[in-house]
């Protein structure tokens, strides 16, 4: 295959003075320090330094790798390595502080820190109980293929993406334009996709249109013939995992005049996308939808995003027969937008249960190889992506991980007031300036580079030569015995 010769986007350090200095541990210097300089000379990472003209030694936390050499050698016992107090307050059981920090580091440097456990979280189920069975006889071949095809039907254009993931729909309004743009740049660099979400198609994205999926959701905000014609892939959002059965919801504060213009609505009024499409009450109606967009642009690849009710397998087969190319199942635990807390955990099944159910069912129906199954909703790392694929998906859609790469710490304040205090999930004109497009896109490129490297490593260690070969290989997974 020709992809072998592909040149991948360059990793460049995309530093962040604050995020880079945060680690799972901290190095503490107490008042016994006599500034002798021993630590400066023993540290191979140059984490201790005496600034010129000062008689004190300071630590540069972002450089420290906690080898402990300075601690051992300090004549005054002035140094110690301690647990970072932030570890107790940041994150949650799905996105552990380790996982957040590791994502930050990957985004800064483009490779994954070996010292941080980021394979699983602590939610006690699903991906967090699945592990790969690594074998000794790893694949020797240099080249491991990580690309997947997004159209497996006979008709329509081939669309191959270089990595088995693409960006999920996050609308302009829920995230800032800068973040959208950064996602699109990274998607183009990695030859994959990002998605507009349901908030219109900002002009700035047009240069990246070959890598932007146009989403058509129930509110039809900002959807026009033009935005459909622009796209190679159109995604119908029937439901979303974070609030299955509830439609979309953008709180009034975030509907700034700019957002309102894009969506053709009145500013500062809460916006609801209804659930469901009021024109779709059956799978035949869904077919009408598919025909409708294909009438506008015949060579479209169509994706249907659905959530995970108990009959998700039936929904998936219906989506197939209606002529869609991609069925995208969105489990409940992900999502970036505002959702009632009661809907996040309690409605529809977790993604991990849904993937094998749909995969097996499509296999039994004999259509598995004509439709692409994409999983999303709670995918945090490349390990999750690989596990989702081993459970039976073709690829995955990510969202939160990209925001974390830009500094999100999952405090959950995105929906209220001015939005995210870090300028990620906000449209507040002042706050959105916190995110610089070049810096942000480089961070996403770095994250993807790190993921790709790890994915190749995983594939080699489980002994398969391409990511397509991994699909449905549950025999390569170990499921930790029932435990709470």
């Amino acid at each position: 295959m020709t992809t072998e010769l592909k040149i991948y986007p360059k990793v460049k350090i995309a530093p962040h003075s604050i995020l880079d200095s945060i680690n799972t541990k901290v190095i503490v210097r107490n008042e016994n320090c006599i500034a002798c300089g021993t630590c400066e000379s023993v540290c191979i990472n140059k984490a201790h330094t005496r600034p010129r003209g000062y008689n004190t030694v300071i630590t540069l936390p972002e450089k420290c790798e906690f080898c402990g050499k300075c601690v051992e050698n300090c004549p005054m016992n002035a140094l110690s390595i301690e647990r970072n107090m932030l570890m107790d307050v940041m994150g949650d059981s799905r996105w552990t502080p380790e996982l957040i920090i590791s994502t930050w580091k990957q985004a800064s440097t483009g490779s994954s820190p070996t010292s941080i456990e980021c394979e699983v979280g602590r939610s006690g189920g699903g991906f967090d109980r699945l592990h790969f069975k690594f074998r000794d006889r790893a694949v020797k071949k240099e080249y491991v293929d990580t690309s997947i095809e997004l159209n497996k039907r006979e008709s329509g254009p081939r669309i191959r993406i270089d990595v088995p993931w693409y960006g999920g729909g996050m609308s302009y309004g829920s995230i800032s334009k800068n973040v959208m743009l950064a996602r699109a740049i990274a998607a183009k660099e990695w030859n994959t996709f990002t998605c507009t979400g349901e908030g219109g198609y900002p002009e700035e994205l047009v240069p990246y249109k070959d890598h932007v999926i146009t989403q058509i959701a129930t509110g039809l905000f900002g959807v026009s013939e033009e935005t459909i014609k622009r796209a190679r892939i159109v995604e119908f959002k029937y439901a979303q995992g974070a609030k299955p059965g509830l439609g979309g919801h953008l709180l009034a504060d975030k509907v700034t005049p700019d957002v309102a213009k894009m969506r053709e609505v009145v500013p500062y009024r809460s916006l609801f996308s209804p659930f469901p499409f009021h024109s779709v009450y059956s799978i035949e109606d869904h077919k009408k939808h598919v025909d409708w967009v294909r009438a506008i642009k015949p060579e479209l690849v169509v994706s249907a995003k659905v959530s995970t009710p108990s009959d998700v397998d039936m929904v998936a087969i219906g989506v197939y027969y209606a002529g869609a190319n991609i069925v995208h199942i969105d489990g409940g635990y992900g999502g970036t937008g505002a959702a009632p807390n009661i809907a996040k955990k309690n409605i529809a099944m977790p993604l991990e249960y849904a993937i094998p159910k749909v995969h097996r069912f499509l296999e039994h129906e004999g259509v598995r190889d004509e439709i692409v199954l994409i999983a999303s909703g709670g995918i945090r790392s490349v390990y999750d992506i690989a596990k989702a694929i081993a459970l039976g998906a073709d690829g995955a859609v990510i969202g939160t991980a990209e925001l974390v790469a830009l500094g999100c710490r999952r405090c959950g304040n995105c929906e209220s007031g001015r939005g995210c205090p870090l300028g990620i999930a906000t449209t507040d004109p002042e706050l959105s300036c916190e995110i610089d497009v070049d810096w942000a896109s480089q961070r996403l490129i770095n994250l993807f580079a790190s993921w790709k490297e790890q994915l190749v490593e995983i594939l080699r260690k489980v002994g398969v030569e391409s990511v397509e070969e991994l699909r449905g290989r549950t025999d390569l997974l170990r499921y930790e015995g029932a435990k709470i």
Partner: protein
Amino acid sequence: MKPFHQPPHQMPHSADAPSKSMASQFAVRRGDECANCGLCKRVCIYGVHERLEEDPRFMAPPKQEMCRGCLRCVMECPRNAITVVPNADSDVENIILFEASTGKVPVSGAGYGGRFGGYGFDGIWLDMSEIVRPTRDGIHGREYISTVVEIGRFPPYLKFGDGEVEKSMEELFTIEVPFPILFREVSAMDSVVECILEATSKLGTYMIVSEDTYDAYPSYRDNMLVEVDVESGMMDEQRTITRVEVRSGIEELVYKLFKNGCAIVHLTARGDGRSYDGKFAGDIVESVHDYLMSKGVREVASIVFSGGILKAEHVPKSLILGADAVAIDKPLLIALEYADCLSSDLSIDWGVQRIINLMCSWRDQLLEVLGAMGMRDVRRIRGEKGRAMFMRDLENEFIQNCGFEVHENDDGT
């Protein structure tokens, strides 16, 4: 006779009734290392960090009740002077305080961060209705979703005499509750009890009380049900509810009560939601419901379940397991900040509003769930296990689909 079709129930309006303790979600401290550089003032967009008004050279103590835990100040302070720690074990309480203060549905961004599944209610997911269901009515039709339940004694079949439905039906005791939540009597000061009673009557629901309380508050009798013990033999009297402790093997007992003319059976579990023999009480409610169904008597009387109902999501889940309604007590005390206002400064108006807010919020959340499930009437989810997914089933199916070998232990997953 009551009209066959009831107009949708009007809830009293929710209104702001702020918490007194200003229970802050986070404890924010600024240590002595602080150099008063003012950076934290700049980075915190919620206004937690401000300079001292009387002497702007110094920082004022943080206004921690405004902190949203974004950790920006902690990370950016050049002297590492700030610590932000979530106030422990207050998750459930924080949610109730929010609901009681505002009457709103708690909403947040950034997805779900909790445990994957778990024990009891945590191992149940409600089903939703995807594109292909015909009976869907969108969330905008929620004013048409009914949360009214009827509980009491119902005739097993209609009896006709002279072409009329026979009179004896009138003697059967039924009450209509606007949403499937009753209150339990709490052992607290009189003012607290009065507060809850007043809210009960405003909301149109019922409080389950002892005979003493029934006598002590004659003006609220319309909204009371007197709790009697199984042994007392008074169970077929009007306005009584028969208390049965939840433990394994009570199916036959409840069946007898149903047979012998009891109107409402109150299945009470321990405060942690477990039965008196340590199991998940919901499982026993489920098996009681199934047993009554198999005996063909489920419809003649009603089941109210209490014990461990602390979140709005526990209500629909209890109904799905087979209860007609639930009863709560602890959330009421939390809403009234009972621990914090032991003194007599409980204002009745404030307290009543807090409880109204809590119930408005819970009812709205019930509506969200019913909307997502494609249900237009809460009575239709009673015992509808097909509209829920249980971790035990999903787990088995998952393991089978994937061909995993799992060494089970009986932890309940």
